[in-house]
């Protein structure tokens, strides 16, 4: 089969590789109909996540048709159309029993390595380095889905791939980010990053009843998508004015937003001055894993007693954490890889009911063979790119 494989820093290529096989009674094989490039794939592409090997198949957002199942997979049949969540969860451990699927205790065989680098292991994740288990990803024609009796959700309605594909990651992740903010109606929420996850965080905050949602980015076309499609009420373009904290305070009567969502993570671009130069140099020489400008600004901007919700990916250690502001404001810091399985059914119902059409983020739909150009276009924000879907 054809698959998009990692070939080195800033290099991916579509190659012919062996077809996946059932290895365990709880496996299924999916013939992939749609798959996507995620913003977090760029951390692999840029070389910031270790333990990638040449030939590793990328991709953790995918869906398709079941073509084979193991003996113990009784909930799925050959021919079922499914969306596969990115965390691989066993369903049996303490974490899974508490709906903390992204920290499943059984699905990451390399958890010891992950603990050394991340500080704590995640669950197994498709196509996301050997630190998360070394599972082959879904930017391919077929994929093996371990624990298929736990993860995939069946799509039984007449919805397009682009409407349901993002249940695999970015829609639940954005929703999770908003959910962590305890929105009850009437709040002001600021969202750092208007990439696809940020767009879903904005849309989710709107769905939950936030009164104002402020989108923050440096690309006008992304801010326009936030305004026009995700219903952000305000935008901050830090390419025009880099002092985000001051602008957030001006928009909120000097107090700051009730909650701030960091949908940026380890490769933030908006730092400036000496601090940015130091972070940039330290990250490049691997003496600091993260460039945490968004998180620092989120803490500095959030109102006293507010919540900082972190859904952007961080990888290890960061410098210059504003602990004084964090402590003296009495902030709550909430974070995590999304426990996708927990959100699949309610979000599927929202899509089915017409409350949201997640396909609004798709700006590029390409054949799988175009994956290398898709990665470059996405990474460099060319051609008004927000989200790339690949068709095997």
């Amino acid at each position, binding site marked *: 089969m054809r698959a998009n494989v990692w070939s*080195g*820093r*800033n*290099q991916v290529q579509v190659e012919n590789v062996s077809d996946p096989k059932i290895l365990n009674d709880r496996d299924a094989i999916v013939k992939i109909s749609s798959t996507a490039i995620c913003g977090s794939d760029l951390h692999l592409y*840029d*070389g910031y996540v*270790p*333990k*990638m090997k*040449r030939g590793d198949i990328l991709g953790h957002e995918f869906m398709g048709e079941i073509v084979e199942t193991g003996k113990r997979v009784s909930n799925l049949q050959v021919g079922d159309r499914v969306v596969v969540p990115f965390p691989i969860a066993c369903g049996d451990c303490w974490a899974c029993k508490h709906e903390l699927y992204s920290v499943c205790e059984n699905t990451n065989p390399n958890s010891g390595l992950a603990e050394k680098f991340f500080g704590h292991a995640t669950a197994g994740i498709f196509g996301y380095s050997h630190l998360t288990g070394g599972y082959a990803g879904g930017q391919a024609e077929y994929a093996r889905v371990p624990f298929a009796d736990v993860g995939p959700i069946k799509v039984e309605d007449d919805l397009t791939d682009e409407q349901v594909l993002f249940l695999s990651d970015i829609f639940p992740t954005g929703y999770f980010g908003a959910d962590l903010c305890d929105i*009850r*109606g009437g709040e002001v929420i600021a969202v750092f990053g208007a990439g696809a996850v940020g767009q879903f965080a904005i*849309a*989710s905050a*709107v*769905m*939950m*009843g936030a009164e104002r949602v402020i989108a923050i980015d440096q690309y006008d*076309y992304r801010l*326009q*998508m936030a305004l*026009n*499609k*995700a*219903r952000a009420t305000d935008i901050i373009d830090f390419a025009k004015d880099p002092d985000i904290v001051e602008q957030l305070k001006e928009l909120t009567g000097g107090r700051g937003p009730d909650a701030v969502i960091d949908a940026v993570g380890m490769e933030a671009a908006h730092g400036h001055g000496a601090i940015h*130069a130091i972070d*940039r*140099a330290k990250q*490049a*020489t*691997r003496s600091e894993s993260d460039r945490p400008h968004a998180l620092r600004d989120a803490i500095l901007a959030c109102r006293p007693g507010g919540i900082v919700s972190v859904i952007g990916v961080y990888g290890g250690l960061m410098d210059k954490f504003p602990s004084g502001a964090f402590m003296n404001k009495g902030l709550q810091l909430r974070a995590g890889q999304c426990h996708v399985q927990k959100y699949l059914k309610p979000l599927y119902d*929202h899509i089915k*009911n*017409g*409350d*949201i*059409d*997640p*396909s*609004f983020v*798709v*700006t*590029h*739909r*390409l*054949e799988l063979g*175009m994956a*290398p*150009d*898709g*990665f*470059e*276009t996405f990474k*460099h924000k*060319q*051609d*008004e*790119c*927000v989200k790339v879907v690949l*068709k095997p």
Partner: protein
Amino acid sequence: MPFPPRPIDSTLHGVTDYCAGGTLLTIFPRLASIEGTESARQIRTAGAIHGGYSAITDYPLGIVKLIPFKAHLALDAVGALALAVTPFASGQWKKGAKHWVPHVALCLFELSALLMTDPTGAGDFHGDIEAVRAANMEDPHRKIYDGAPAVRPAVAV
């Protein structure tokens, strides 16, 4: 990770270029205790040349993007070796260690930086944007600017 690891992309390489060029031009001769000697003049010249071709390199920190990044790296290698050879070619090495050690040390620093630099110029776009536009089954501009909002407010309260 690729081996050998190449953590220096074109942006960071540019930072190193300007920092090194500036240091060689200004305080390096004094720090190396060679101020006023032929060695100081040679090292200042090397710093000026380095800063000069950095400014005309096609990388994110280049001012006028005239020469490709790979050509810049080749100039780095040639320049570093030339600097190391200079005190021996001119015979000034006979005056003592401080008249050749700085040249050789700077050469080794430059070659080390080169070995750790990603020659693909990671900061630069190297896709085929026309091919992407031709193959794209979506219209990005229309998706962003046209049509109704994609979400209903306050449905998940």
